[in-house]
């Protein structure tokens, strides 16, 4: 009897041990980076999933992405069910994707979606960019630049302005250098402005094609400020930055749309005397929205060619300063001798890898851009209907060096001076004048 009870008990234990109370894993629907979509619904599912798993701001974003699924899935399913005589219109397609992405925090986020020929009654295309700011300028960047340069000419020491304004704003960076009188006789302030962070790439281009017609002109402002090796840092005494008569520096990144982080070390890191902790970044480390890696320090190195002594450095930035321009602003702000004057920046600071060759980074970090970059860049291709979408979004979540959130918020100035169009129209750049006063007076 006792023996029977023992073995029945043992049997019960073994039986209990084999009871599985665990949830089943999800069905594998493939990598959203390279899914082929033949229906509106499958395209929606691929894009929704890509954002669900790969968007890096889910811990901060207030959008209820599951609710968006419930709301928009029936809309895309209904598109597929349309009769041939009532095709989906461009406006309907655009509205559906605009609504899906509305309010998301990532200020880099841009999506291009195409109902390709494989999709019944297709040929619609949508382009979304949901990032919004609570303030903006009422003039274009190029007009603001024109007015600010006009005001700069009034402040510059005559004959010192070196400028390069390319005809195509997507080509070489425009760049501007001049000297401004300091507080005392013989003292100067060096001013340098550039319109995007492709200075090192520009150098590489002219290294390969030195006889290009605008090679000298395009590099002249940077050479005047940094010296001939501007792509490596500040050359001692060859550029004005290290000149003893220069008592302060103004770096102007207003209207700067960003570019490559490759520029940060030679152009901004060289203004310091040691490596600078700008902030922290992290990527995804799994399938869940909140599966994050550890934070990694984002340090901009100081190149061997750097500013030989500390001088007051003011960075001028505003809501038109984007991405790398914001990183540069954060870096200068973090320097002991750095001050940020101007407006809160745009707020697109998450690090990002994009482009045909770098789209693989989605498969490395499981975050950031996904889809077909070639379509994003070149538009629909009748011979290439595999991919019908591309989402351009941050690969890295970045915070500042106090773990403060900057994405969608922007970098806060030390001294806030708002963009003033009416003063600019009168020929006065109030932000530039405040920077000059700061260096001359010390506060």
């Amino acid at each position, binding site marked *: 009897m006792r023996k029977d009870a023992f073995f029945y008990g043992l049997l019960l234990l073994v039986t209990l041990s084999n009871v599985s109370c665990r949830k089943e894993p999800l069905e594998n629907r493939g990598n959203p980076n390279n899914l082929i979509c033949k229906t509106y619904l499958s395209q929606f599912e691929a894009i929704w999933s890509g954002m669900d798993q790969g968007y890096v701001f889910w*811990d901060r974003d207030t959008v209820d992405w599951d609710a968006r699924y419930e709301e928009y899935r029936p809309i895309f399913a209904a598109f597929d069910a349309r009769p041939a005589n009532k095709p989906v219109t461009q406006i309907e397609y655009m509205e559906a994707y605009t609504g899906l992405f509305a309010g998301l925090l990532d200020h880099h986020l841009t999506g291009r979606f195409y109902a390709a020929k494989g999709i019944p009654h297709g040929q619609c295309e949508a382009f979304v960019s949901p990032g919004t700011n609570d303030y903006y300028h009422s003039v274009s960047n190029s007009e603001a630049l024109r007015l600010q340069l006009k005001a700069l000419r009034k402040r510059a020491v005559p004959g010192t302005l070196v400028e390069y304004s390319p005809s195509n704003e997507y080509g070489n960076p425009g760049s501007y250098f001049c000297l401004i009188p300091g507080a005392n006789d013989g003292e100067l302030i060096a001013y340098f402005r550039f319109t995007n962070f492709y200075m090192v790439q520009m150098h590489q281009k002219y290294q390969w094609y030195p006889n290009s017609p605008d090679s000298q002109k395009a590099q002249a402002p940077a050479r005047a400020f940094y010296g001939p090796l501007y792509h490596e840092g500040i050359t001692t005494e060859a550029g004005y930055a290290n000149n003893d008569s220069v008592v302060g520096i103004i770096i102007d990144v207003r209207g700067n749309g960003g570019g490559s982080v490759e520029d940060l070390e030679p152009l901004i890191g060289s203004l310091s005397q040691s490596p600078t902790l700008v902030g922290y970044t992290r990527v995804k480390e799994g399938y869940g929205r909140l599966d994050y890696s550890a934070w990694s320090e984002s340090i901009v190195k100081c190149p061997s060619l750097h500013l030989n002594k500390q001088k007051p450095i003011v960075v001028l930035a505003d809501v038109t300063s984007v991405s790398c321009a914001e990183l540069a602003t954060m870096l200068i702000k973090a320097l002991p001798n750095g001050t940020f004057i101007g407006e809160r920046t745009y707020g697109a600071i998450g690090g990002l890898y994009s482009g045909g060759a770098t789209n693989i980074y989605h498969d490395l970090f499981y975050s950031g851009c996904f889809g077909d970059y070639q379509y994003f860049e070149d538009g629909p291709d009748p011979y290439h209907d595999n991919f019908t979408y591309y989402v351009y979004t941050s690969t890295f979540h970045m915070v500042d060096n106090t773990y403060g959130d900057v994405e969608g918020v922007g970098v806060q100035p030390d001294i806030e001076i708002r963009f003033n169009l009416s003063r600019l129209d009168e020929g006065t750049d109030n932000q530039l004048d405040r920077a000059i006063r700061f260096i001359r007076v010390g506060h």
Partner: protein
Amino acid sequence: MINRLTIPIVRGLLLVWLAAMPAVLSAQEEVQAEPRTRHFSFGITAGMDRNYHSVDMVYMSDMKFDKFRTGTVFGLRLGYAPLKWLSINTGAVLIQKNYHMDHVFEYYYLRYSLNTTSTNDYVNIPLELKLSVGKTVRLHAFGGVFGGYWLKGHRKGVTYSFSNERYYSFDEDYEFNDKRDNRIEKGFTWGAGLSGMILGKIEVGAEIRWYYSITDIQKPYMTNLNPRYNTAVAFQAGLSYWL
């Protein structure tokens, strides 16, 4: 904390257990007097465990989680034996449920190798029935349920830094995310072991035990959530004193 305390304790207990076994086997007479007339016991146990972190990475096929990862176990146990062959046991066990993630990505000339070792301290409270047979050396089989709490996490490894475009090593305490991390754990426990009596009142034993968690380590904070579970297999030795 668990590591520092447990490793010497485990070694000590194993030595005591090994030293005691000849005495157990040779002391038949004293052994005849053992647990059947005694009802309550208390004791300590220690050992090591191997944890299996179960997660389906869906399409993320180059992100691998090691099958097992070693941790340490240390616990207090209480027992009540209404019958010679049946007892009810409980206690509190500090157990590590560790895992390791390797993510090697290769694309033509590019090769990135990222990894994270996650060390997780749990307290588990089992409640189980134990069936026992034998006289000199007793054989036990037991099973029941356990509840637990995720006390602390630590992670160490290599990730990638954007601005520096290089690897970045980290070694830090894990900061729990209230929205994601489910720190409450429950599950089944079962196993088997051997024991013997020494000095009349002290039972020394060793066992192998499974802690099979049925709670996802993540809260259901998103619809498309892939579950993650821990299964720890513990090898423990211990001493109990019978009142």
